[in-house]
C-alpha cells in the first residue's frame, strides 16, 4: 500500500495539488473540450482549405481557444486555492510541518501552472499540423504561445495570491470580471492583428526580429515575473504565521528592481519620456499595496536578526522590519529613488510627467491613509487597500463622467482629496499649474499623515519588543 506516483524531489505541495487537481472535473472538462474543439476545427479547416489565409485562420483559432483555456479558466481555478485552506483550518496543520507559507503558495500556483503546461503541450500537435497549411512564422508563433502561457502563469499568480484575502470581492468577484474582460481584449487584439497583416501580426511583433520586439518582449517577461512574484508574495503574507518574515526579502527585491530602473532611467537608454513614469508605477504599485498595509507583528526572532548587527542593523530595520510602519519609511525611500532619473534628466521631462508621477504616488498613498485611519486589522488591511484603490478609481470615473456631461469641472475641486480626481482635473483643465500644485500638496499631506502614524506605531512596537525580550 505505497504511493509511487510522484518522486520525492517534487515539492509536497505540488504533489498534493497535482493529485487533487488532475482529478477535478474543471481540469478534465477543459482538457477534453479543448482537444475536441481543436480536432474538429482542424479537420474542418483541412477539408475546406482553399484560401491563402487558411493557415493564419487556423493559428488564430488555436490561439483563441488556448487563450480561453489558460487565461480565463485555469487562473480562475486559483480563486479558491488558499481560501479553501484557510476556511478548512488546514493552513494551521500545514504551517506546523516544514512547509513555509511561501512553499504553500508557490505549490498551489505551480500545480495550476503545471496543468496549464499540460494543456500547452497538447496544443503542439495541432500547431505541427497547421504548419502544413503554410504561411507560418514558426518562431513568432512559438514565442506568442509561450507569452500566452506566461500571461496565464502571471494571472494564476494573481488569483492564487488574492485567494488568501478575506474579501470576497477581491478574491472572487474581481478576477471573475477581470479575467473575461482581459480575454475579450485579447480576442479583439487577435481580430485587429488579423485585419492588419494577417493572423501572423502578433507573431511578427513578438518574434524578436527587431530591437523594439526584443525590448518589448523582455520588458513583458520582466513585468510578468515581477507581478507574479508580488502577488504570490501577497498571498504568502496573508497566510504566514507570525514567526515567518517575508517582508524583508520582498522589500529587498523591490529595492533592487527600483534601483535598476532608476539607473536605466538615468541613462539615455530610455528615449520615450512616457516610459519611465509608467515603469515606476508598475514597479511601485504592488510594493506600496503590501508595504503600506502589511500586518506583521515584530517578533523577537526577526528583531534579533537585525539588532545583532548593531546600529547598521537597527537602521536597516527602520526600512526592512516586517509591518506597515517600516513599510511607510521604505515606500518614502523608494519614492525618493524613483525621483532620481527625473531630477538627473530634467530636460527630458515636462510638468505633465511630474504631475503624472505625483498623482500616481498620491493615489497609491490615499488608500493606505484610509486603511490606517480606520484602524483596519489583520489580513483585511491589504484587501481593503486594494478595494479603496479600485473604489477611488471608479469614483473618479463617475465624477469625470458627470463633469463631462455638465461641461463643468469646477465641482471636481471638491473631491481633490481623492487623488485620482486630479487626473480628471488635469484632463479638463487648460492650465496645469493649479493641478500640479494640488498634486504636490496632496502627496506631501498624505505622506505626512502616514509618516506621523508610522513613527508612533514604530516606536510602540520597539517598546513592546524590548519589553518582551527584557521583561525587567
Amino acid at each position, binding site marked *: 500500500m505505497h504511493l509511487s506516483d510522484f518522486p520525492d524531489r517534487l515539492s509536497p505541495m505540488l*504533489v*498534493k495539488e497535482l*493529485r487533487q487537481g488532475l482529478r477535478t472535473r474543471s481540469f478534465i472538462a477543459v482538457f477534453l473540450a479543448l482537444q475536441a474543439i481543436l480536432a474538429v476545427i482542424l479537420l474542418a479547416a483541412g477539408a475546406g482549405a482553399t484560401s491563402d489565409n487558411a493557415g493564419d485562420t487556423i493559428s488564430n483559432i488555436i490561439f483563441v481557444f488556448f487563450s480561453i483555456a489558460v487565461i480565463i479558466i485555469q487562473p480562475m481555478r486559483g480563486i479558491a486555492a488558499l481560501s479553501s485552506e484557510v476556511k478548512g*483550518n488546514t493552513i494551521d496543520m*500545514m504551517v*506546523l510541518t*516544514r512547509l513555509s507559507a511561501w512553499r504553500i503558495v508557490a505549490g498551489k500556483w505551480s500545480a495550476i501552472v503545471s496543468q496549464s503546461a499540460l494543456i500547452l503541450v497538447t496544443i503542439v500537435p495541432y500547431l505541427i499540423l497547421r504548419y502544413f497549411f503554410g504561411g507560418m512564422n514558426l518562431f513568432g508563433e512559438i514565442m506568442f504561445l509561450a507569452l500566452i502561457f506566461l500571461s496565464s502563469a502571471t494571472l494564476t499568480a494573481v488569483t492564487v495570491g488574492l485567494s488568501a484575502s478575506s474579501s470576497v470581492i477581491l478574491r472572487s468577484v474581481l478576477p471573475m470580471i477581470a479575467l473575461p474582460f482581459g480575454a475579450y481584449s485579447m480576442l479583439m487584439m487577435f481580430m485587429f492583428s488579423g485585419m492588419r497583416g494577417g493572423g501572423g501580426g502578433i507573431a511578427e511583433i513578438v518574434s524578436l526580429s527587431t530591437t523594439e520586439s526584443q525590448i518589448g518582449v523582455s520588458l513583458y517577461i520582466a513585468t510578468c515575473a515581477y507581478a507574479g512574484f508580488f502577488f504570490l508574495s501577497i498571498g504568502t503574507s496573508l497566510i504566514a504565521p507570525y514567526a515567518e518574515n517575508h517582508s524583508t526579502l520582498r522589500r529587498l527585491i523591490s529595492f533592487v528592481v527600483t534601483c535598476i530602473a532608476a539607473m536605466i532611467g538615468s541613462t539615455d537608454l530610455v528615449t520615450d519620456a512616457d516610459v519611465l513614469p509608467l515603469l515606476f508605477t508598475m514597479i511601485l504599485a504592488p510594493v506600496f499595496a503590501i508595504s503600506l498595509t502589511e500586518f506583521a507583528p515584530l517578533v523577537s526572532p526577526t528583531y534579533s536578526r537585525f539588532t545583532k548587527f548593531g546600529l547598521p542593523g537597527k537602521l536597516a530595520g527602520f526600512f526592512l522590519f516586517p509591518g506597515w510602519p517600516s513599510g511607510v519609511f521604505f515606500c518614502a525611500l523608494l519614492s525618493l529613488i524613483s525621483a532620481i532619473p527625473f531630477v538627473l534628466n530634467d530636460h527630458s521631462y515636462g510638468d505633465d510627467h511630474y504631475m503624472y508621477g505625483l498623482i500616481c504616488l498620491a493615489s497609491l498613498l490615499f488608500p493606505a491613509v484610509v486603511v490606517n485611519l480606520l484602524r483596519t*486589522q489583520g*489580513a483585511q488591511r491589504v484587501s481593503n487597500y486594494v478595494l479603496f484603490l479600485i473604489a477611488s478609481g471608479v469614483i473618479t470615473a463617475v465624477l469625470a463622467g458627470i463633469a463631462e456631461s455638465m461641461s463643468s469641472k469646477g465641482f471636481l475641486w471638491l473631491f481633490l482629496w481623492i487623488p485620482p480626481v486630479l487626473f480628471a482635473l488635469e484632463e479638463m483643465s487648460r492650465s496645469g499649474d493649479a493641478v500640479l500644485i494640488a498634486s504636490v500638496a496632496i502627496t506631501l499631506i498624505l505622506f505626512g499623515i502616514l509618516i506621523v502614524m508610522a513613527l508612533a506605531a514604530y516606536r510602540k512596537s520597539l517598546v513592546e519588543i524590548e519589553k*518582551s525580550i527584557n521583561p525587567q
Partner: protein
Amino acid sequence: MSDAAITVHNLYRFFGPLQAVNGVSFEIPHGSVCGFVGANGAGKTTTMRILASLDYPTMGHAEICGINVIHHPAEVRKLIGWMPDHFGNYDNMTVLEYLDFYARALGYKGAERRERIDEVMDFTDLVPLADRFSNKLSKGMTQRLCLGRSLLHDPQVLIMDEPAAGLDPKARVELKHLIRVLAKEGKTIFISSHILSELGEMCDSLLFINDGRIVHHGDSESLKKSTDTLGGVLYDVQLDGDPQALSDWAVLQPNIEFLESRKNGGRIRIDTEDPNKAADVLSRMVRENLRVIDFHREQRNLEDAFIDLLANLEKDKQTVPSPPPLPQANPPSAPPEPPLP
C-alpha cells in the same frame, strides 16, 4: 529552562478589548495527561494555539520541553502534534495520499516515509480506509486521520483541542483508547474537552480556565473536594408517578436541596452525612405519599465540581468590588490581531 513538558508563565493574549488569556501560568510534567476545561470562550483554544506556535501572546512566555514557543517556533513544531477543534478535509484525496502529503511535508523521504505512514495507519486503524476519499469519512474516522497526521513525526507533546467533540459513543471510546495507549508510551498530552467525566478518567491532572484565568489545577479528586463548600450527600431519587412531586416536596423540607430534575425524579442534597438522617428522609417521603422506587447515594462528579467552582467564582466576584490588577502595570493598550484569519 524548565523540566516540565509544557510551561506557561504569565501568559496574556488580548484581541482588542477582549482579554482572551489573562495571566495564565501552569506547568505540565513530562509523560502526563492534562485535561483543559472551560466554558466556550474561556481561553482554551487561544492558549493551545499559542502553545502550538500558531498564535503569539501579547505578554508572557510559553515553553515546550524547555524551548521558547515565541522565540523558536520551528524547533517547537518538531516536538508537538496538533489536533485542532475543527478542520476540513481535502477533496479528491485519499486517506493514504493525505498522510503521504503530510509525511512529505514533514521531510520524510522514501522508505522512511512509507514506514512512518504504515505505523501510523496501523496505530489508528486506518488501513481499511486507505483508498477512501478523506472528505467522505465519518467524523470518528476523520478524527483518527487527524490524530494519525499529528503522530507522523512522533511528537513528544500532543495538543488536542476538543478531539471528542461531535463523536458518536463508539468513536469516542476508540479515541479514548488511543489516547490511553499514547499516554502509556510516555507522550505528554494536553487535551481540552467539554466532556468532564471522560477527562476525569483519562487525565492525571485537570486545568480549569474561566475568563482567561486558571481557576484550578490539580487532579479530579482534589477538584471535587476543594469545590464542595456546601457539604452534605447527594441522592438520586426515582418515583413511580409524577416526578414533579419530588421537587414540590423537597422545597418544603428543611436541610434538603433539590438540585436537578431527572427522567423519573431528581437529585437532592441532604445537608448531613449521617446515614440515619437519610433513612429519616426516605421514610418521610414514603409517609407523605411519594411512591419512591429508587433511592441511592451518588458521588459528586466533575460536572458538579465544575458548576460549584463557577458558582463560587461568581460569588467571589460579587463580594470583591473591583477586579484584581494585572501583574504588569502597562499591558499594550491596542494589541495587534492574529496573523491568521
